[in-house]
């Protein structure tokens, strides 16, 4: 805990510098952090303490956004891992799939939003599709890699001791590929946040964090715009920290084995 406090000291310093700089510049486009914080509080954090100060408006904006983000991320994770492990373990399949993957992941997801609008007229489905398409690649590529390069001695041991297919998958291949898979999951989680915003900016959304950002921009509510941007940064930080916590617990064998070897 002491370490965290030590490492956090640059934050107030930077905020103080920002405050001083913004006040000195006195520009409408660069409101000081105190004004941004006040606007944030007014927008979303004026609720009762029992609800972590979240206002009704916050729940109305955050919950649908987060639901779409986690929903899209979960679908992409499940599909990416399943497909990735299958491709990683089958060189025949890999020959067909590898070029398609390289083609697919080179396409910036926002360019496909019009396509998704045509395909899924319903707003939510189009947003989730954008998120899934955008975040599946890191999971897929890392799962392929992880499953492909399972130590041959591990697979030979499994073969010699006659492990069943299910055992090989769940007890050998998935754990062996887990460090790589987790790296992909983490990358895709931060991408999911970005694509959540992008999909709300481009579509005809009527709620959500991205929608509020757009709304603030269009109404020259600059403290609101900056506040939303800061909120997204904090959200990304929280998501990443929580993910790392889960990863450290799940892969503790991996970290500790590396430390001892």
């Amino acid at each position, binding site marked *: 805990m002491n370490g965290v406090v030590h490492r956090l000291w640059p934050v107030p310093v930077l905020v103080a510098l920002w405050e001083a700089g913004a006040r000195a510049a006195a520009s409408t486009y660069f409101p000081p952090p105190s004004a941004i914080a006040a606007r944030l509080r007014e927008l979303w954090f004026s609720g009762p303490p029992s609800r972590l100060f979240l206002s009704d408006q916050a729940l109305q904006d955050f919950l649908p956004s987060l639901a779409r983000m986690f929903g899209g991320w979960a679908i992409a994770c499940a599909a990416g891992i399943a497909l990735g492990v299958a491709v990683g373990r089958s060189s025949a399949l890999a020959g067909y799939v590898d070029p398609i993957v390289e083609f697919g992941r080179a396409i910036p997801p926002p360019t496909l939003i019009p396509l998704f609008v045509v395909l899924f007229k319903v707003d939510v489905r189009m947003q989730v599709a954008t998120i899934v398409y955008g975040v599946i690649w890191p999971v897929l590529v890392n799962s392929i890699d992880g499953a492909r390069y399972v*130590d041959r001695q*591990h697979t030979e041991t499994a073969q*010699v*001791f*006659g*492990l069943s297919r299910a*055992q090989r998958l769940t*007890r050998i291949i998935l754990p062996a590929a887990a460090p790589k898979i987790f790296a992909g999951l983490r990358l895709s989680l931060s991408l999911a946040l970005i694509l959540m915003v992008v999909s709300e900016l481009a579509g005809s959304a009527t709620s959500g964090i991205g929608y509020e950002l757009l709304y603030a921009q269009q109404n020259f509510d600059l403290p609101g715009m900056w506040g939303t941007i800061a909120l997204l940064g904090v959200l990304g930080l929280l998501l990443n920290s929580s993910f790392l916590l889960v990863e450290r617990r799940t892969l503790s064998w*991996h970290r*500790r084995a590396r430390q001892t070897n």
Partner: protein
Amino acid sequence: MLDVVNLTHTYGTGPNAHRALGGVDLTVAEGELVCVVGPSGCGKSTLLRSIAGLVRPTGGGVRVKGRSVSGTPDDLAVVFQDYSRSLFPWMSVGDNVALPLRRRGLGRAARRTAAAEALSAVGLESAAGKYPWELSGGMQQRVAIARALAYRPSLLLMDEPFGSVDAQTREDLEDLVLAVRGHHRMTIVLITHDIDESVYVGDRVVVLSRAPAVVAADLRVDLPSPRDQIGTRELPAFVHLRAEVGRLVRGKPQLSKAPNGPSSIDKE
């Protein structure tokens, strides 16, 4: 128990092809411990991997209990040289040992009991809850041996099992193998590059020639049991046999007696 008949294996094709096995014939009787030695790179491991079904031989065949096998025979266990890559680092030691036992039709509790028994047979009764990488190299190889014991194979293959541990641990593990095979009545084929070791643990020592390997000699080891690291190694018979195997491995003509020596046996 095990019949290897005219086994050949060639890696690759064309001008770069490497003939590892040039027609190996080997018969191992039930309950026997046969050591296979040979010069480095002669194809010892290829022979073992062919028997284990990890390599598909290009010619010849393998029969276990009279039945010809392709792929990995049932009832077979392998102890690899590289224990750190053969044990699964994400599982506890107990789970590593118990994992293959589901195939034996054992329930969860029975698997755990069998794993605990095998671990205690190798002197690691308190290690079940640890991870492999928390143990020393010699202890990890004991876990690999325990995993093989718990599986109760009729044929156990060991590929340079003590090649990665220090000398003291190597002696302990050699004696461990001799002790457990007495209890478990297993047939063991042990591959080693260590001539002393082959004579010390083996009932027979099979010497392979340089690649493409064939059986250059098949010597019966007539040393008293139980063997003893100090006592056995100073016996004249041990010293003599070791020298004979050493010459054969180096491919030099035998200086002692007849070309096949009195301690040699004919191929069965």
